């Protein structure tokens, strides 16, 4: 699917030129576009910094969103104050839009917790690693909104929608297809936002679908649209319209954001095994940040130091992330027992007590130190 494809909604060309589309328009002003630019730059810096921290052994893993910033910021900034997000593990840019502390994203990948932010106050739900599972959660949540009577009231401060993110690979999972069915059957206020970054680890999109993904929605009876996922204006316009459709009671929309995973799948992956450098080069020309910068530069009207100030902000963010990551506190094993149930069970209390006593015995009694310390030094730390 090449650019210039009539099937692809685009409002800002790779060269930074605004183009028209019969059905979609970006109605914001340049200030908003500057905001998108800032969001994307900061997201990218967060991502770069996290990747570096993983290399330094400070994170167990990192899933980079490099190249997908426009898809994430364009959609994240289309959400209103009642909308709710169900992400995969890669939506760092969307998390950013919802005000999730980047350090909390790092916490998960460092292994100090399984998701440290508050999904209720941020309206950004936990990262979901089991591919596709969150599509059903998002749908159920949207069914709840509808049951709450918060769809189609006409009051913009009340109507709400859900956006559920997933990748191209995820579209093959039963759960995602069942989510389409439930959403369609109950006409749930939901936007399915698929970032087609062309790859599911090493598997190309062709393994999952032999037709453009956005057409999957046809089969389930709701609209599908393909948007240039590297065009923040188009993504914003398309997502805004889909969310509005959902909020006003017209049901689900499927958005395929056509983009590219510029990095490895995660820091554990080695994409040179399965894809060609050419492809990367090709997509580098479509960089989502460069095109906005080109547009802003060309259109003028921005403060002189705008780009520089965003750079400074990014440097500060990077510094905060670096120091903050190292300061993240390991959880307490003893306390984990308290988080399994709302109502603790006697059985777990007993295991907890046993473990507390057992581990205390190593600390209190200097004679009886861990025997493993002798055998496998360093593993206890």
């Amino acid at each position, binding site marked *: 699917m090449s650019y210039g494809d009539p099937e692809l909604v685009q409002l800002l060309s790779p060269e930074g030129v605004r183009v028209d589309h019969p059905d979609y328009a970006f109605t914001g002003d340049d200030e908003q576009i500057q905001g998108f630019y800032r969001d994307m730059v900061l997201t990218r810096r967060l991502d770069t910094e996290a990747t570096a921290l993983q290399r330094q052994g400070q994170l167990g893993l990192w899933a980079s969103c490099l190249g997908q910033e426009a898809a994430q910021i364009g959609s994240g900034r289309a959400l209103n104050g009642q909308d709710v997000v169900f992400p995969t593990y890669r939506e760092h840019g969307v998390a950013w839009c919802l005000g999730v502390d980047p350090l909390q994203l790092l916490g998960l990948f460092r292994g100090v917790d399984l998701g440290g932010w508050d999904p209720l106050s941020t309206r950004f739900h936990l990262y979901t690693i089991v591919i596709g599972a969150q599509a059903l959660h998002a749908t159920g949540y949207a*069914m709840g909104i509808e049951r709450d009577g918060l769809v189609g009231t006409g009051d913009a401060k009340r109507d709400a929608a859900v956006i559920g993110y997933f990748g191209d690979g995820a579209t093959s999972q039963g759960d995602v297809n069942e989510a389409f069915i439930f959403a369609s059957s109950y006409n749930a206020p939901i936007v399915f936002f698929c970032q087609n970054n062309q790859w599911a680890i090493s598997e190309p999109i062709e393994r999952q679908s032999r037709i453009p993904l956005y057409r999957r929605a046809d089969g389930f009876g709701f609209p599908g649209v393909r948007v240039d996922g590297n065009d923040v204006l188009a993504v914003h316009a398309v997502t805004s319209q889909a969310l509005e459709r959902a909020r006003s009671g017209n049901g689900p929309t499927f958005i395929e954001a056509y983009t590219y995973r510029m990095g490895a799948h995660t820091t554990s992956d080695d994409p040179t095994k399965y894809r060609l450098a050419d492809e990367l080069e090709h997509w580098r020309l479509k960089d989502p940040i460069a095109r906005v910068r080109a547009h802003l530069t060309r259109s003028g009207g921005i403060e002189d130091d705008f780009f520089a100030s965003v750079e400074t902000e990014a440097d500060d963010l990077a510094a905060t992330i670096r120091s903050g990551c190292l300061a993240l506190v390991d959880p307490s094993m003893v306390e984990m027992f308290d988080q399994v149930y709302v109502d603790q069970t006697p059985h777990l209390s007993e295991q907890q007590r046993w473990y507390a006593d057992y581990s205390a015995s190593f600390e209190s009694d200097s004679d009886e130190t861990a025997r493993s310390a002798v055998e496998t030094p360093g593993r206890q730390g």
Partner: protein
Amino acid sequence: MTGSSASNLTMARALNAGLRRALEADPKVVLAGEDIGKLGGVFRVTEGLQKDFGEHRVIDSPLAESGIIGTAVGMALRGYRPVCEIQFDGFVFPAFDQIVSQVAKFHYRSAGRLAMPIVIRIPSGGGIGAVEHHSESPETYFAHTPGLKVVACSNPVDAYWMIQQAVASDDPVIFFEPKRRYHDKAELDTSVPPMPLHSARVTRPGSDLSLLCYGPMVKTCLDAATAAADEGRSLEVIDLRTLSPIDTATVVTSVRKTGHAVVVHEAPISLGLGSELAARITEQCFYSLEAPVLRVGGFDIPYPPSRIEDEYLPDLDRVLDAVDRSLAY
């Protein structure tokens, strides 16, 4: 259903009444499942509820179990308390991923911020002459999964209360209903307060041996105890009621007293609940045990064609055979 009115109910009706109470008590309670609306469920447990509470609260789902549980997770996150029906035991497996990786873990993953007050009702067990996949006893799969609570009712009175307690639980509960006991009747006096959900009950006290059972096997074990009494043996029958957490204290007290224990369930013996009970009992009653804990269960083969299910399932004779063996040690 208020005050001290007593009535004679089947287990199916008792569950229906309990669900009705739960729907009345909390507007956030919703039921979801296949055929639970107009039809009232294939066992009629939800009969009349959609008519009275509407389609928004008693939801007929598309034919997709993972979808039922996965959307229930989302509704729970929105503040609802979904009660999902799985039509038959053998059809819970398409939803297994959502149950073990999502329902069971959400509270923990969110460091305690989010709750998952979901009940998953599963008519289970055999004995009704059904075709394949309609007679399974999958409790081990759930009782082995941290984050879930698992209970099994054995009689109409418990069914009435336990379903309400399960719905009120802020933790997810897998709720097993012994389908071959749906039509058993009992007197329900709602003025008698229920036991806590996660407690076992000494249903019949005895001194010679502890018979541990739950769900459909409680009746079988009570019959066995009656038969044994004729032979001068005093069996203590414990209805476990809660399979996760197990009420170990009640079990241990009994076995310390009797010195003999036999566990009975329909599920395959290997890694059935009996294995966990045997392990725990042996750990905690080592010096009281006069015989190893014996297990009577389904054989370690898939459920057989229904014409011979009575040979597969533990019955009074198999229970008494194990009792004989235990007491002969």
